[in-house]
């Protein structure tokens, strides 16, 4: 397979009927106690869709709300406002355990921090086996073990039989991360929310996992929300790229389009910062300290305006909304130019 045709296939599918759609998704956190209560706007009025068999990469600054989005989708957090539609139905309408279980079976999550996402009291196979038990009740005990072994092998951990029986503290960060990934794979999901699933892996193993993602999408039609700091890997697997900044999605579009033709100044900055051994060092961002903003009780206006080299007056008073600036390519910037072609 080549990644190019994968991209096209995914793009057409997603246009037809989105698997999951987030509308005006918002999540605020209360910070401080008692009187001096303040609101941290982790995610603010975010809209996006994830199509069937689509890999959507979500990148952005640390603290910009990527994990929060994943957690909102996984139902770990309840949205402050906004709605998530899964296969056309709002998840807030799930009442029965059956509905919820079905959703959870379809949309598993790989947690960002592999050190805290495995229960230290159980062998690492615990999570995989439990997932199988909950979501594929038809399997017998022995089958579950077989299946677990298979997925653990699939994420590149071998010998699986040995690894399964270890306790989390006996695994390295990278190994744990892969166990987390295996948990999400175990029960034929439809959409995997993968929060930096490869951040702790060595380049060599990382690529194996990325290949696995692509293969799963191909063979089993699984979609991914792939959260990462590693733009290069996003380019490698993702059909679409979303860039977040301070709780807002500031740019979204087909991966290549965004990379080749970034519309939002932040995207520009971000791409400029990504080192590439195969390309010469680009300059021009030296003045930027790269301090991520905390979005506490924000006032209207573009959140990037303080760091933006292009900021105009309007940016200080009006929050930019996503605008279509190219084919499937949107950015939230007052000054960005649309594609000319």
């Amino acid at each position, binding site marked *: *397979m*080549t*990644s*190019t045709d994968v991209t096209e296939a995914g793009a057409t599918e997603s246009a037809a009927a989105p698997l999951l759609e987030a509308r005006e998704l918002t999540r605020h956190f209360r910070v401080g106690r008692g009187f001096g209560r303040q609101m941290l706007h982790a995610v603010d009025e975010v809209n996006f869709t994830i199509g069937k068999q689509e890999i959507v990469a979500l990148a952005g*600054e*640390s603290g910009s709300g990527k994990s929060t989005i994943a957690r909102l989708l996984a139902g770990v957090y309840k949205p402050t406002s906004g709605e998530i539609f899964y296969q056309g139905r709002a998840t807030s309408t799930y009442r029965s355990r059956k509905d919820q279980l079905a959703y959870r079976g379809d949309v598993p999550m790989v947690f960002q921090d592999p050190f805290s996402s495995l229960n230290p009291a159980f062998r690492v196979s615990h999570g995989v086996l439990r997932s199988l038990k909950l979501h594929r009740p038809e399997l017998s005990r022995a089958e579950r073990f077989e299946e677990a072994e298979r997925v653990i092998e699939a994420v*590149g*951990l*071998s010998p699986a039989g040995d690894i399964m029986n270890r306790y989390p503290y006996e695994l*390295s*960060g*990278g*190994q744990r991360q892969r166990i987390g990934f295996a948990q999400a794979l175990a029960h034929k999901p439809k959409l995997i929310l993968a929060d930096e699933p490869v951040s*702790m892996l*060595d*380049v*060599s*193993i*990382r*690529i*194996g996992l*990325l*290949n696995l993602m692509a293969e799963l999408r191909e063979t089993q039609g699984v979609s991914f929300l792939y959260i990462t*700091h590693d*733009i*290069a*890997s996003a*380019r*490698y697997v993702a059909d679409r790229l979303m860039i977040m900044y301070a709780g807002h999605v500031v740019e979204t579009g087909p991966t290549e389009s965004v*990379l080749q033709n970034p519309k939002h100044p932040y995207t520009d*900055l*971000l*791409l*400029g*910062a*990504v*080192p*590439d*051994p*195969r*390309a010469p*060092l680009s300059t021009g*961002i*030296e003045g*930027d*300290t*790269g*301090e*991520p903003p905390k979005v506490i009780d924000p006032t209207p206006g573009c959140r990037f305006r303080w760091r933006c080299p292009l900021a105009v007056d309007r940016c200080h008073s009006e929050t930019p909304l996503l605008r279509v600036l190219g084919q499937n390519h949107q950015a939230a910037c007052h000054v960005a130019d649309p594609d000319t072609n």
Partner: protein
Amino acid sequence: MPDQLLEVRDLTVEYDTGDRPVVAVDHVDLDVHAGEFVGVVGESGCGKSTLLFAIAQLLSSPAAITGGSVRFQGQDLVTMSEKKLSALRWRDFSVVMQSAMNALNPVKSIGAQFRDTIMAHDEPVADERPAEVLRLVGIDPIHLNSYPHQLSGGMRQRAMIAMALLFTPDLIIMDEPTSALDVVAQRSLMVQIKELQKQLGFAVIFVTHDMSLVSHFSDKLVVMYAGQVVEFGDTRAVFDAPQHPYSAGLLDAFPSIRGPKVPLTGIPGTPPNLASPPPGCRFQPRCPKAFEDCPKIEPELYQVGAVQARCLLHVKEPVQERTS
């Protein structure tokens, strides 16, 4: 070379685990010249941090240096008394630790930590020096009165680097100083470090597992695998033509955001257990080019053109004997 700053020979470090010792650094040789930027890369757990600590004599039990020497400006640090070491430390070489989050004392203000450092040495230091170095790394000196928890992760890492510059040492050892930062911040910090290095002329040993970072910033590259140096040479040379299959694997394994999009493969298998490494070449069980000698003969570092590589493929050109 005349301006040889650091000369590490046969350095071996073991962790006493109760059963078999973990040999985390295994007969490592390393040379750093004044003003040089040496990058160290390698898989997680291959002994990079341990090597740095061993160089700085900062190992604490259960780790111990069990062999080799570390000559810094001509003096052997391994046999040096703690007292003499204290005098040398920070003034002549300083260390920026892997996690700046925890490397600052949480109960002392940044300024107090500067003061402590100054008081520990009888090096004359101007009163404005702390403020000056903070400004150098882009932190407002107002933060001298701040406590570590009041700074963001990036600021803490900068503060650490500022502190390392306090006495303008000859060598700064940095262990993944940018790991806590996101790409933009990491990038700007690296640029600053490089800039400072150009200005002040100190040498840097820089550990990371981000290949792309070293590719842009370091002069020399050390590739470690399972406690050993497997390849050593000019960065560009290694990147252009990696001589060790492991280095080659590393370089093959990461995608680019520019160039053409090609399917990549990783290195299969897992790194060896350092308490019982595989026989012969340590990379041999994972090596795509392994042949029958590999599990039998332990390779040495062989000179291959401009670089040295620990691979039996290059056995015809044995590395020349060193005079140490």
